[in-house]
């Protein structure tokens, strides 16, 4: 079984995030790391491969060449190789453009399963997997909190606001895993030492057969017109505790609004 895991390099979670008012894009300077949500997808891919006894886990990403530094972490965890699409013409890609490029790579790889983390930690989009599945005309299941792969199909439990759905889908399929699905392993020191020697292909848009007009700013359909702070969601009520009275006051508040 060949499993493709789409990953993204993002600004390090510790670093302060800001949007550059000039370009209206996220300021991507400073320390970088692999999107933490992607680690759940990597972990799941590795567990599936280990359970199957054979297979290949391929990391796929689009970004600057430096993104390989972050992808190395997933190679150290145990992924077999990495494919990074890097191209001047890919800069400024939105979801539509990015999904075009990624789907080209995935189609070329002929993966049985395509895994995504639930969202990107920087832009918090959480839709790229749906766009990729649409382009590839594959079934897509999101928010997976339990997964089983057997007999050419997947059985997944999808978390919803009110419970969960149990969904079956044939392979190949695109899956976006919830961060509750598993506990990503730490890369071992042996894995770290082996990571650099694993195949890491850096490809251009032309290499993967992506259309330059469908990538980057040219292929993007999103325009940022203005930036503003999110509107206030109402006044904060502060409750001063007097001899353990706060719990009652919170209860009153909830009852008043019919939350309980």
């Amino acid at each position: 079984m060949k499993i493709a895991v789409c990953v993204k390099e993002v600004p390090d979670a510790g670093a302060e995030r800001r949007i550059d008012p000039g370009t209206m894009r996220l300021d991507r300077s400073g320390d970088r790391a692999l999107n933490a949500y992607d680690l759940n997808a990597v972990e799941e891919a590795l567990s599936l491969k280990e359970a199957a006894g054979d297979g290949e886990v391929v990391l796929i990403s689009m970004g600057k060449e430096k993104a390989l530094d972050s992808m190395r972490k997933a190679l150290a965890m145990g992924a077999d190789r990495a494919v990074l699409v890097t191209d001047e013409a890919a800069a400024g890609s939105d979801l539509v453009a990015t999904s075009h490029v990624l789907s080209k790579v995935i189609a070329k790889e002929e993966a049985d399963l395509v895994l995504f983390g639930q969202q990107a930690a920087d832009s918090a989009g959480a839709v790229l997997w749906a766009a990729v599945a649409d382009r590839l005309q594959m079934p897509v299941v999101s928010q997976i909190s339990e997964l089983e792969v057997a007999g050419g199909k997947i059985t997944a439990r999808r978390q919803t606001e009110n419970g969960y759905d149990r969904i079956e889908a044939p392979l190949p399929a695109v899956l976006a895993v919830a961060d509750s699905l598993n506990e990503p392993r730490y890369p071992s020191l042996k894995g770290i030492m082996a990571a650099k020697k694993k195949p890491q292909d850096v490809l251009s848009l032309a290499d993967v057969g992506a259309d330059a007009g469908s990538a980057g700013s040219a292929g993007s359909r999103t325009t940022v017109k203005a930036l503003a702070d999110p509107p206030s969601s109402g006044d904060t009520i502060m409750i001063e505790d007097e001899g353990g009275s706060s719990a009652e006051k919170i209860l009153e508040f909830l009852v008043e609004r019919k939350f309980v």
Partner: protein
Amino acid sequence: MLSYAFTEEQEDLRQMVREFAQSEVVPLIEEAEAEEKFPVQLIPMLGELGLLGIVFPEEYGGIGLDKITECIFVEEMAKVSAGMTASVNAHADLAAFPIYKFGTEEQKSKYLPPSIAGEIIGAYAITEPNTGSDAAGLASRAEKKNGGYVINGRKNFITNGTICDYCLVAAYTDKENRGEGISVFIVDRDTPGFEVTRKLQKMGHRASDTAELVFENCEVGEETLLGGEEGAFGALMEALITGRVSHGVKSAAIAEAAFEEALKYAKEREAFGRPLSKFQAIRFKLADMATRIEAAKALAYKAAWLYSTGQPCVKEASMAKYFSAEVADYVTREAVQIHGGYGYINEYPVERYYRDAKLASITEGTSEIQQLIIGRELGL
């Protein structure tokens, strides 16, 4: 050519240990410190990640890397818990390493793979109730009997004493021959006559177990002798040099942890209408602390580099241990001072760092012993 760059792999290792320390080690600290108990479950976790076998060859399950790489691990661990780092170092540097360096093939294949995998824990026992710096003055004896030896003696301040599966024990086989007459034995914990008599309560490093051991008519076989009878003790003591390099990095890391807390506090806490960091008195302190930490780390990694490249570094290892101990003492003291009253209560970690730092100038060769070694290396 002078380069201060770590390799990409070393940077990745640092990142991995940092994440591991934050997620897995930090949650264990409070209980370990309060109960003065090393969380033994940490050892197999470190083993699985390959962190106990950094300098050991692959044939024993190690990774076969250098001292610099090991120091990166020690630094990141010590930044969160000096106590746990002491236990890990005693296991890897003091117990497993001498076996690797001086053991027979049989001893190596018996002890190294499980030590590196974190399945068993080692300890090293030289110090006795009446013998510390004067290692050659130890009173423990090992007498020949039935083709083996009978060990009698008491050992004190033994890191991992309560939790070890095996312990390297130094004892005289030839009492007439001061220093040279000492032999070292690898004694399994379940050997009759090997007793842990007391777990010691310490000022700092409380997340590490320290014990008093008694060997009473403890019979061991000839195969437990490490490095041959007599004469090996000097070589074994020299093996402690790797521990000194680790201490150089470890003490600098304690200092850095305290510095980071002090820096954060100085920016947040206000006095007389402005943050502490705006006062020159505090800035000078922080500048001085940062400078000394930088110097301590540079010296420690220089020693690690010399060691890794096979160059003599007796002097530099002692300098690193001695200097970093002084820096840790100074920086943790100033970190407490910057915190004022909050530095004196255990809700802020600087109180722990201050207590932890004190051990640096005492353990594994006091600062005075390091000064003696440095003096000797200067030809005095």
